[in-house]
């Protein structure tokens, strides 16, 4: 069991954003959460990333309870995420963004870094090699030294994903990976997600609106509406489920 959510609930003031959400993910699968806007999908991600605290419920990652873990520990445990609105470091180059993705494995030793001892240099070179592997994987060579502010939206989304991959996660959270992308870019994204699963062996948890991408890539789908689980199953089952149809199209 890679990730298990048990009875997850959270209130924002008077609004119950999530109400008793439970699901379990197996290792190596691509698990997608769908639902209309405001259903609470990104809230689940924020709970896993520990940006919010749940009012109720537990999150268990590979047997370890991560419900109250400090936010900066999540990366070290092996969970990486991308953000819906792209939270890249705008005034840094792509390379520096990706190198920061290595931070979870780069415990800083202040004294050593101050003098830039040879072992710091060796570590830096090792990080650079790891980052270059990810750059090769996602074809970002052309943008290596560009500042993020100068890059087009599609490329930024790929950089966001690259940065998440640099943390060498076991679980990757992708928040709307195809939003704002053209048809070709979405196809590329589909191939990359499949490669991430098959070649890198990373489990993927995805929030997505684009149903073609969902059907093409996902193993199982969870449908949410108003913070509650509607159904859980294969993409075909979920798309044909009457409650899901009602939530999206109205009765």
């Amino acid at each position, binding site marked *: 069991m890679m990730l298990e959510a048990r009875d997850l609930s959270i209130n924002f003031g008077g609004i119950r954003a999530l109400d008793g959400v439970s699901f379990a993910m197996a290792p190596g699968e691509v698990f997608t959460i769908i639902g209309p806007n405001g259903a609470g999908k*990104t809230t689940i991600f*924020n709970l896993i990333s520990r*940006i919010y605290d749940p009012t109720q419920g537990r999150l268990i990652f590979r047997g370890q309870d991560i419900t109250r873990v400090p936010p900066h520990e999540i990366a070290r445990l092996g969970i990486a995420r991308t*953000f*819906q*609105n792209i*939270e890249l470091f705008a005034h840094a180059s792509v390379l520096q963004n990706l190198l920061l993705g290595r931070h979870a494995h780069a415990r800083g030793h202040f004294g050593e870094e101050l003098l830039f001892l040879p072992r710091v240099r060796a570590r830096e070179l090792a990080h650079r090699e790891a980052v270059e592997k990810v750059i090769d994987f996602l074809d970002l060579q052309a943008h290596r030294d560009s500042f993020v502010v100068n890059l087009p939206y599609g490329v930024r989304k790929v950089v966001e994903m690259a940065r998440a991959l640099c943390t060498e996660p076991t679980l990757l959270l992708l928040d709307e990976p195809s939003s704002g992308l053209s048809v070709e870019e979405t196809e590329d994204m589909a191939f990359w997600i499949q490669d991430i699963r098959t070649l890198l062996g990373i489990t993927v948890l995805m929030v997505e609106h684009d149903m073609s991408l969902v059907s093409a890539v996902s193993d199982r789908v969870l449908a949410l509406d108003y913070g509650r689980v509607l159904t859980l199953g294969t993409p075909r089952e979920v798309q044909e489920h009457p409650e899901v149809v009602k939530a999206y199209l109205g009765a």
Partner: protein
Amino acid sequence: MLNGLAVGCIYGLVALGFVLIYKATELVNFAQGDLMMLGAFTCYMFVVWYGLGYWVAFALAVAIVALFGAGLDSAILRRVLGQPQFAVVMLTIGLGAMFRSFASIVWGSEIYTLPTPFSAKATRLAGVTVSHEYVSIIAGTILLCAALYAFFTFTRVGVAMQAASQNQLAAYYMGIPVKLMFSLIWAISAGVAAIAGILLAPVSLIDINLGFIGLKAFAAAVLGGFGSIPGALAGGVTIGLIELFSGAYLPQGVKDVAAYVVLLLVLAVRPQGMFGSVARKKV
């Protein structure tokens, strides 16, 4: 006791100016205290140099400083809309320094007194000597706050201002004259600062460093909650009273920094102050 209340009212008024600008435009105006100083000096100039009556000078000074505030907004501050907050903070600090310099060139760097109808008058009320100057401060603050409250509650302008502060582009699309709103807010805020300066003048005498009271008014604004107008006033009065009591009961020197200690405590323990709310980025 009255002394503390009166000083607190002044802090509250300056804090009110801060909060007004912050609520509308999300800028923190580090030059608020210096606007206060300019108001006091302008009134002094009208009374002493040109021999106008106190009330006429009062009204004129407030009007001029208000117009100046609006002009400041349209000429300078508009250009930094959308830049990171650091830039705006530095801008207002620089402007404050320029105002102090201007004041010292035009009016000189000595200390001046402003003759008012309340100076050096006192009445005995229930066995306590009450100085008219302090009463004028408190009364003036109450009147001003009532007027502002009415303005914001009963006109559409208040809502428009809030919209403009949340998302400037969207406010434009909704037909709100955002630029006019901002200039209006700056005018009101500058006017409030001028009134505070003129009310304070008989008590603390006028000199170019009058603006440093603005720093203590920060503490008042933060204590009250940076987005809350009644909070600013409540914060100001609280700080005034705290200073009074620390001056009376605590060792020497604590009184001067009491406001800052309070500020730090509030920021560390409860950043939203008494009435404010905490905002957070949605990812």
